[in-house]
């Protein structure tokens, strides 16, 4: 948590974020987005959030980049610069209002690293004190994730499996499209009714499932 390193990493984050949105070549934008995630993972590691740093580096910098490249290579590589000036006139005041509102709200937030912050004096202290005795697990985050708050993990696993199945249903080929491929294989047993993320895929689930 060295302050100059933090500030340097944050400035790098801001620079890569602005550049990722600015460049016209989408593959370059993906590379910048992966760099952004990697610097965020470095920040997480510097703040002693090791589990989060590991997952962010693997998922954000690695897998998200691969998915973006796969999608870009399946579609188009260049983005047309068509930001309408009228749209910019509407969006910029909105963003300024948002930032102003958040700044006003942040005056009530606790200082950084304050040990008396409400977040630190609640149930988290009990978890740290009791986790080794009750679960024999030194890693407190794993103990909370899989034991104290396992219902959240159950819901989250359900969400990620549903998202993957929804993505598969959205892109499933129809039998008569002449591509030589079969209809959707994504019958993981969950069906299309649990879909949170892809409302467009739900209507066609009944057609392919013959």
């Amino acid at each position, binding site marked *: 948590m060295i302050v100059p390193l933090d500030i340097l990493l944050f400035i790098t984050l801001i620079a890569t974020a602005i550049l990722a949105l600015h460049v016209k070549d989408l593959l370059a934008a993906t590379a910048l987005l992966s760099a952004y995630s990697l610097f965020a993972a470095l920040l997480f590691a510097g703040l002693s959030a090791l589990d989060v740093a590991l997952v962010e580096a693997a998922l954000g910098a690695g897998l998200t980049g691969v998915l973006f490249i796969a999608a870009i290579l*399946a579609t188009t590589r260049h983005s047309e610069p068509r930001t309408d000036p009228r749209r910019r006139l509407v969006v910029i005041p909105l963003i300024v209002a948002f930032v102003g509102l958040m700044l006003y709200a942040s005056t009530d937030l606790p200082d950084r690293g304050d040990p008396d912050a409400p977040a630190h004096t609640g149930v988290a202290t009990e978890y740290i004190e009791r986790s080794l005795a009750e679960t024999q697990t030194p890693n407190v985050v794993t103990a909370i994730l899989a034991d104290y708050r396992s219902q959240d*993990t*159950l819901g989250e696993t359900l969400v990620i499996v549903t998202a*993957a199945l929804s993505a598969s249903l959205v892109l499933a080929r129809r039998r008569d499209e002449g591509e030589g491929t079969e209809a959707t*294989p994504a019958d*993981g047993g969950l069906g299309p009714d649990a879909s949170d993320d892809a409302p467009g895929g739900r209507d066609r689930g009944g057609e392919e499932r013959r």
Partner: protein
Amino acid sequence: MTGAYPSEVVRVICAVASPFIALFGLYVIAHGHYGPGGGFAGGVFVAVGAILPRLTLDERLAYRIFPPALGPLAAGVGMLLFLLVAVVPLFVGGAFLDYGAVTIAGMEPARVRYLGILVVEIAVGLAVFGAMLLIFDTITGRSER
């Protein structure tokens, strides 16, 4: 995007590295109790160990070792395992997901919770592996092979 990469150096190195990446993923899942990681990070690493051959090696080889049908299968099995572990305490009088209520002979409740955490981590690792593999296969268009 999938298929044999033209450079032989890349093909050889990725072929050598992929099993170790998958093994590291299994290590991270199994050691979630003692170090950073756990089910999510480990599941992602194993998925990367399955995706890397798809990106660089010959297609027949890559899709034979980890077939595309493994994605939905692993996701479903992981989810089912998690739900099974969650429901078992209900049969012995405890609450949903309360591993400590299950009494196994010779083990204190803390040890039972330890084992419950381990099974949950494995289930989550399986589910995340299946989900990531399915998403990748969907976007590259090979999920039917």
